[in-house]
């Protein structure tokens, strides 16, 4: 296969964002009839590199050749003209448009939605998709949106497809379905690139793997000639231990008890349907489920941010006294003396204020302390400095706005602050999403430390491998209902995966 002319040749590609070097003299070959896995940690420049191929960014230096001919890709229409289509991690869809409107967006010619719908159905049949051209995007589930994205690219006749972490939002079953489609395309002679940092996906789908580390290209090889440990080492740059600690829970007693909790969103859709479980002190309780099936509402209901229609959420003190949390806002909960910490999914949109510096962000939880009208700025400043030392947060200073920090450091600031007020309950949502391996392990360690302190940890996660290694028990949600509670030490991925879709109809 090495003798073939690559469909895409990228040479010495360099891209800077301000002072950050995102790609440094990267090389990449993409061949037709192959699935290439572009592997690298978060922040290693995979997406940036592919964005330059699809015309979103323009490289500072370097050349790109398609079928051996050097080209300039200045904007996305150039890329499309060359047959390059990218499916972004954050879907590029207009919510208020129908699937068909989204698919034909940007194409030349007269607007004929009927003809477009016919062509869409044709593509769907050929590769085995299920898309209703008339459906509006805001009514779709995540995997439906992804399908629309893929059809959109195929509709344009792209034969070089790039998928940016397509499986992050899918269940294991949906992932298998997607992979089957990708194999169809490969056999159809298309070049497929899949960006990922999950090793097992590389092994199951790709023919070739290319690895990036900190913006550098560290090499490519045929997937069958390598193994997970070697790839990880190339990704991280040194040998890594891939196991997560799981200490045995000690002195567990009930701490948070949910009974028949039912939540509807603003539009009246049922998000949680009679959810009941108990979180114990000194244990990590995992919450698994397809994205958007009630995890966010669940945590926010406990934290006092989400109105609950019926049911009860009680905080159980050490002496067995129950405190009802429903109907109380975060301030009321704090006044009750319940030390509850919450690491939300949306770090910069909810947990922190991106434009404020580290010490001002520390103040978010503590600014009310002390009498009088004025805020105390010394203690938060001190706390921020301590945290930078302690968690090895990389920042120019504590006066730097947190939005300028990298994802891992932002998360350390958030988790650090939430842990600093000695919680009894710690809620975390996707605590390691977008983090590199090192930062992820720091977060797992912090969570385990809290567990050993006797904190009841509720851990919402999306990576089943991590959930299975970290959590003592796992509550599986499906369409807002609890479809099972399993022992993290005894279950396996297939069992949990099946429970995630068990109830069938996910009411999105």
């Amino acid at each position, binding site marked *: 296969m090495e003798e073939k002319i690559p469909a895409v040749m990228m040479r010495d590609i360099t891209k800077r964002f301000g002072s950050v070097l995102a790609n440094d003299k990267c090389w990449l070959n993409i061949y037709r009839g192959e699935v290439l896995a572009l592997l690298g940690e978060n922040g290693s420049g995979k997406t940036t590199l592919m964005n330059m191929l699809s015309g*979103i960014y323009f490289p500072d230096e370097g050349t790109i050749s398609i079928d051996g001919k050097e080209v300039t890709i200045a904007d996305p229409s150039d890329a499309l003209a060359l047959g390059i289509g990218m499916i972004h991690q954050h879907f*590029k869809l207009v*919510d208020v448009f129908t699937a068909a409107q989204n698919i034909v*967006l940007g*194409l030349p010619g*007269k*607007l004929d939605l009927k003809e477009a719908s016919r062509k869409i159905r044709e593509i769907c049949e050929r590769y085995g998709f299920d898309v209703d051209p008339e459906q509006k995007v*805001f009514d779709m589930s995540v995997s439906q949106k992804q399908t629309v994205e893929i059809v959109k690219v195929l509709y344009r006749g792209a034969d070089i497809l790039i998928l940016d972490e397509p499986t992050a939002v899918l269940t294991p079953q949906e992932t298998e379905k997607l992979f089957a489609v990708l194999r169809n395309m490969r056999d159809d002679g298309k070049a497929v690139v899949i960006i990922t940092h999950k090793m097992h996906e590389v092994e199951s789908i790709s023919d070739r793997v290319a690895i990036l580390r900190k913006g550098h290209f560290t090499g490519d090889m045929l997937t069958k000639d390598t193994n997970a440990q070697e790839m990880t080492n190339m990704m991280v740059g040194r040998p890594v231990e891939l196991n997560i600690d799981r200490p045995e829970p000690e002195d567990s007693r009930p701490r948070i008890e949910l009974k028949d909790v039912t939540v509807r969103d*603003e539009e009246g859709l049922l998000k949680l349907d009679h959810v009941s479980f108990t979180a114990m002190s000194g244990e990590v309780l995992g919450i698994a489920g397809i994205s958007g099936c009630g995890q966010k509402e669940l945590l926010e209901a406990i934290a006092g941010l989400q109105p609950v229609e019926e049911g009860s959420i009680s905080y159980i003190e050490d002496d067995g006294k129950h405190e009802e949390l429903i109907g109380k806002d975060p301030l009321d909960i704090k006044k009750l003396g319940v030390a509850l910490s919450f690491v939300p999914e949306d770090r910069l949109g909810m947990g922190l204020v991106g434009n404020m510096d580290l010490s001002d962000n520390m103040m978010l939880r503590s600014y009310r302390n002390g009498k009088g009208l004025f805020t105390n700025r010394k203690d938060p400043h001190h706390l921020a400095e301590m945290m930078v030392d302690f968690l090895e947060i990389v920042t120019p200073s504590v006066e730097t706005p947190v939005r300028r920090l990298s994802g891992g450091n932002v998360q350390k600031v958030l988790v650090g602050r939430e842990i600093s007020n000695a919680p009894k309950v710690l809620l975390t949502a996707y605590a390691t999403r977008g983090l590199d391996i090192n930062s992820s392990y720091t977060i797992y360690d912090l969570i385990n430390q809290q567990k050993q302190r006797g904190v009841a940890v509720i851990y919402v996660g999306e990576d089943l491998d991590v959930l299975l290694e970290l959590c003592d028990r796992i509550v599986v949600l499906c369409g807002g209902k609890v479809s099972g509670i399993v022992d993290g030490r005894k279950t396996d991925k297939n069992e949990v995966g099946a429970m995630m879709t068990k109830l069938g109809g996910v009411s999105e």
Partner: protein
Amino acid sequence: MFDFISFIPRAVMQGVPLMLGCTGETITEKSGNLNLGTAGIMYVGGISGVIGAFLYENAAGTEMNPFLTIAIPLLCCIVGSILMGLIYCFLTVTLRANQNVTGLALTTFGVGLGNFFGGSLIKLVKTDIPSVVLTRTSQAFSRTLPFADRLGWFGKIFLSYSFLAYVAIALALFASFVLNRTRTGLELRSVGENPGTADAAGINVVRYKYLTTCIGSVVSGLGGLYYVMDYASGVWSNNAFGDRGWLAIALVIFTIWRPSVSILASILFGGLYILNVYIPTGTNLAIKEIYKMAPYIVTIVVLVISSMQKKRENQPPAALGLSYFREER
């Protein structure tokens, strides 16, 4: 009895500038640009037309070519409005400035420009005419269909208007058609909803924003021209145009971003505007001032009601007010 037959034509005449302003602003907002400078643009549209007409009337003397009498002010109005649209676009699209502040500055600038030339035109051209009264141009602009008078109430209500009024309605309908039925409309809406998506689909976001904002400015500017040439009979008086630009922006929300709805809505608002003239008040002149609140109060009520019902289809363009930078991280 309330005199509808004289009320409706006057309401329509009041409504036409609003209709043009509203249509122009709707087109602009569909591209994601919230142009608070519309008030200023309408002033500039008006004064540019006045300047053109004034210069032509003076130059032509008694021999006025009917075509040029219309074409020169119209062209001046279009050029003036486009320049205003370009200033707005250069600042907000190319330089990514805050849209609200830019809009306000544009209004200050535009209103200032209108009032300045309105007051100083004579002085600047050094003629001996006492004031800017463009009777002849105005006559050309407000010419109505010759047989309208003979059709009784029907002619009065439907046919008694000048060509710009019908142009306004046609523009609103045309804008509606383009937005909903054509590829250009689809692409434009995608720019306003999600410029990142539009960009990735190969749509030139910057070009769309520039083009639609300039077209929107022209349409709004025509509103100013209609006001001074037809409604005000060619007499420019400073600040007479008043707050109509702001009402036009409010109307955009009232019509939930649908130009076709703006036709009736702006006539309704036009009616509210002159309601105080039709309500008998006797000797209590002060109470008239209270009646003049009607359009504003109604706008407020509409704002509140439309914010209370949160229908997915009736939301503003999702990226309204935000500037777009492709390499944003």
